[in-house]
């Protein structure tokens, strides 16, 4: 199927006309005029409004739910509870998913849905929620994962046994989902060789992805059971298949259309209100619109994993890191799925270390189930890892970047998880950091500078897409991967480059789930890379077809036709004397040749190119208040080849400010009652424009040899070293090492005080 593509890796000598420029993105126009349709901007005929009743308790048995009064309220058309979802065995994938959507035996966090109502107005729906009587048997709860690991901690699931546990406790109920070790070399021997050893503990609190678009959806279930679902999602096909898994609806009967996506960052890779809307619509026999409030988003959708980390690292005097040992624990909420393995693998990927041991625990507790967020689990672990790297460099007396350079991985290195790196740009990135203006300029008086180095794997995976040529010679692309920040435009640009036509002659649109085969989620920085492969493959198929049609029309052999800049031409004067034929001329005559020209590809894309970044940050810390001002921020990153530089810069800058939020402010704060205390944007404070400086970018381009345009992926790498770089900057500014995220004013004040004492 894709041998066309496989024959052609990246061509370093190509001269691009479209790729590498920064045209206005096509979806931008409707976004600056207010016409773009985000999830909440849709309405359906006869639409009802749905609302969710959520648990006020972090942990309780749901003894009974009486909905009779709510059902009798005029205007209420449907009330649903656990009874409206088929039983799925607890502890299985479907069992967990259905219980996250709607509580069954127990509620596991404050905000866990227990019932939902569809009514003719929002006011009536809310009134009905108050009439639902839930009888709870309140249970002891546990919020923190380290506490949840202790003997005697309240147990969430009686059935849970630790995967990977041995010994006497292996068969006891526990909150530890998994104990996992990843190691290489001989850790004891490694430390024996070290001249300097640093050992520290770190912790981090969960932050929320913080997308501005509240989750909203409209579900319409027809009388024969067909489901039409409109929603904001990074993963339409995944939502569909999960609906099938928990509701026993044939996938062919579910059509999901993604709206414009108002931010996701990983948080919209799994559904929340969508199955409830489907169930309400099925019961009410009408379209149901549900929109979360901000408090519901913060309480009811997944933040990231809070963590604890004990890290020990050793190096020789010459700067060689010889051993790194860590013990990491990850919150996952009440159910497994933190993706902690990312962190286990990525903690040291920048460096060639002979002896490594990384022990991880994934732990359930009474918090909302975590969800992905740009490089899931990695930035909060790199926070500690890059802190000890900096401390090692300082202890040895080496320049921080030289120290990193000395240990940097390069092409040919095999990682601890078995990947052999092809062309990677870590060394180029560190060199570029050394040469950038920020690093070369002196640290301003009273400030501290921090450096950290980050990594993300970048991903590929299952991707499908079609492309068609219209009779006027313009090109349509149908994509399966959600567009989270401009990937439609990058696809159009790659297609325009292939055809040698202006990008305005190409449009990319997002498919519904009936239009294409399965597409994996837009996550892992895989979309521009993977769908880009599909687009290039389709374009090359179409070019082949254009040549074959031209050959037919000229009555010459196919090899006698070449394609260049939008035209089919005779390969040489020997072929004959023909005027070049445009895409339009050929495609307007398809009635006389073999019918319309289109192409279609399904791939399980491999060959993603890992990405590396160095962040350089200058901070100033107010000694009286503990307030941190970020004064200067530079991201140096290997982006592979850039399709649209302005979009790549935007990804990097956005990630830097998310990192600033995570580093300095954002956290989930729980009261003694196990309830979230800051479920609103006033108290869950994300960075605003006046909190941050301009974000400078230095983009290195080491092309990924496995992609026709040398692409890597830029969505996640730029978040990974952010909190660490800021932490290092603060440590250098105040002379003590902060070890807890976020590094908020009260914590820093206490730290400075204890250092003085």
């Amino acid at each position: 199927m894709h041998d066309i593509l496989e024959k052609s890796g990246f061509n370093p000598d190509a001269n691009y006309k479209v790729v590498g420029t920064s045209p206005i993105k096509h979806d931008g126009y409707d976004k600056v005029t207010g016409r773009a349709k985000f999830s909440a901007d849709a309405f359906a005929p006869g639409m009802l409004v749905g609302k969710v009743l959520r648990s006020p308790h972090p942990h309780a048995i749901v003894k009974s739910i009486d909905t009779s009064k709510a059902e009798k309220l005029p205007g209420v058309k449907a009330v649903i509870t656990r009874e409206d979802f088929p039983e799925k065995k607890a502890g299985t994938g479907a069992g967990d998913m259905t219980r996250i959507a709607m509580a069954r035996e127990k509620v596991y966090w404050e905000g866990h849905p227990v019932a939902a109502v569809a009514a003719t107005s929002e006011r009536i729906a809310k009134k009905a929620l108050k009439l639902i009587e839930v009888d709870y048997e309140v249970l002891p709860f546990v919020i923190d994962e380290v506490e949840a690991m202790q003997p005697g901690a309240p147990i969430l699931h009686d059935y849970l046994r630790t995967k990977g546990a041995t010994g006497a406790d292996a068969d006891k109920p526990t909150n530890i989902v998994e104990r996992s070790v990843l190691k290489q070399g001989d850790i004891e021997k490694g430390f024996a060789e070290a001249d300097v050893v640093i050992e520290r503990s770190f912790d981090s609190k969960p932050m929320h992805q913080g997308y501005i678009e509240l989750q909203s959806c409209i579900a319409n279930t027809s009388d024969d059971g067909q489901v039409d679902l409109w929603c904001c999602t990074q993963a339409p096909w995944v939502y569909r298949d999960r609906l099938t898994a928990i509701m026993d609806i044939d996938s062919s009967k579910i059509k999901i259309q993604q709206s414009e996506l108002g931010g996701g960052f990983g948080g919209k890779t799994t559904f929340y209100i969508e199955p409830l809307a489907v169930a309400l619509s099925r019961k009410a026999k009408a379209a149901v619109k549900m929109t979360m409030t901000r408090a519901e988003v913060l309480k009811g959708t997944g933040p990231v994993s809070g963590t604890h980390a004990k890290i020990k690292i050793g190096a020789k005097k010459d700067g060689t890191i010889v051993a790194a040992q860590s013990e990491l624990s990850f919150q996952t909420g009440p159910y497994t799925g933190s993706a902690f393995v990312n962190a286990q693998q990525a903690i040291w990927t920048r460096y060639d270390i002979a002896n490594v041991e990384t022990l991880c625990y994934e732990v359930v507790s009474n918090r909302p189930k975590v969800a992905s967020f740009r490089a899931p689990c990695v930035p909060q672990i790199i926070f500690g890892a890059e802190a000890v790297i900096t401390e090692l460099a300082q202890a040895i007396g080496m320049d921080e970047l030289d120290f990193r350079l000395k240990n940097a991985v390069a092409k040919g290195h095999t990682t601890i998880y078995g990947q052999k790196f092809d062309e990677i740009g870590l060394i180029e990135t560190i060199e570029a950091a050394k040469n950038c203006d920020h690093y070369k300029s002196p640290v301003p008086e009273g400030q501290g500078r921090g450096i950290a180095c980050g990594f993300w794997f970048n991903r590929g995976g299952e991707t499908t897409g079609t492309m068609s040529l219209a009779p006027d010679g313009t090109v349509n692309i149908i994509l399966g991967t959600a567009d989270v920040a401009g990937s439609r435009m990058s696809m159009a640009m790659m297609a325009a480059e292939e055809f040698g036509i202006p990008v305005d002659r190409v449009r990319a649109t997002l498919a519904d789930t009936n239009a294409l085969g399965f597409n994996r989620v837009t996550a892992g920085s895989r979309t521009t890379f993977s769908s880009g492969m599909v687009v290039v493959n389709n374009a090359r198929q179409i070019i082949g077809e254009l040549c074959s049609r031209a050959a037919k029309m000229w009555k010459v052999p196919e090899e006698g036709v070449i394609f260049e800049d939008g035209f089919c031409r005779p390969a040489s004067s020997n072929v004959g004397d023909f005027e070049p034929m445009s895409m339009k001329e050929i495609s307007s005559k398809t009635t006389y040749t073999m019918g319309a020209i289109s192409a279609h590809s399904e791939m399980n894309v491999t060959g993603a190119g890992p990405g590396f970044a160095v962040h350089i940050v200058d901070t100033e810390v107010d000694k009286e208040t503990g307030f941190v001002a970020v004064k200067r921020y530079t991201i140096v990153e290997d982006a592979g080849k850039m399709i649209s530089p302005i979009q790549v810069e935007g990804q990097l800058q956005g990630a830097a400010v998310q990192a600033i939020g995570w580093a300095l402010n954002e956290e989930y704060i729980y009261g003694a009652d196990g309830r979230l205390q800051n479920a609103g944007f006033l108290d869950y404070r994300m960075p605003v424009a006046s909190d941050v400086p301009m974000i400078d970018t230095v983009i290195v381009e080491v092309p990924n040899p496995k992609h026709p345009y040398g692409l890597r992926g830029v969505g996640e790498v730029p978040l990974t070293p952010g909190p660490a770089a800021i932490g290092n900057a603060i440590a250098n500014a105040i002379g003590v090492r902060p070890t807890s995220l976020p590094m908020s004013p009260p914590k820093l004040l206490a730290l400075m005080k204890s250092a003085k004492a």
Partner: protein
Amino acid sequence: MSKKYHVSLTVNGDEYECLAEPQMTLLDVLRDELKLTGTKEGCATGDCGACSVMVDGRLTCSCLVLAPEAEGRSVETIEGMAKDGELHPLQQKFLEMNGLQCGICTPGILVAAKALLDRKPDADEMEIRYWLAGNLCRCTGYDKIIRAVMAAGEEMKGA
């Protein structure tokens, strides 16, 4: 049945009337009654600025205005920013300079930025940053937004 209030208002120069429940906000009226969905809801508590509109010439969070309070007011929204088929310089600069990624914050930010530049086209970086401090954007890191506003101001000064 709760009593509904009759509300008449002008939006972008056009007259509208609707019946609003007492708890409804101007944001609800714009979006759900008038189907002018360019104005967004990000929090409904006045903390994100996605719902920014002009009410009688003042920059306002429409989620904090009750519908009956909008009676007789003149409201300007993102839908009225492009005039006579021409994008406003702010809209043009946001497109050219990538002042938007997902675009959900964009209408609110454009309305707020216009309110500033109308009075002060030569606002500097810090003034723009503080003026827009009520408008959350999670995607861009603000860099390109601030630059686009400065560039639009430059152009408006010249106009």
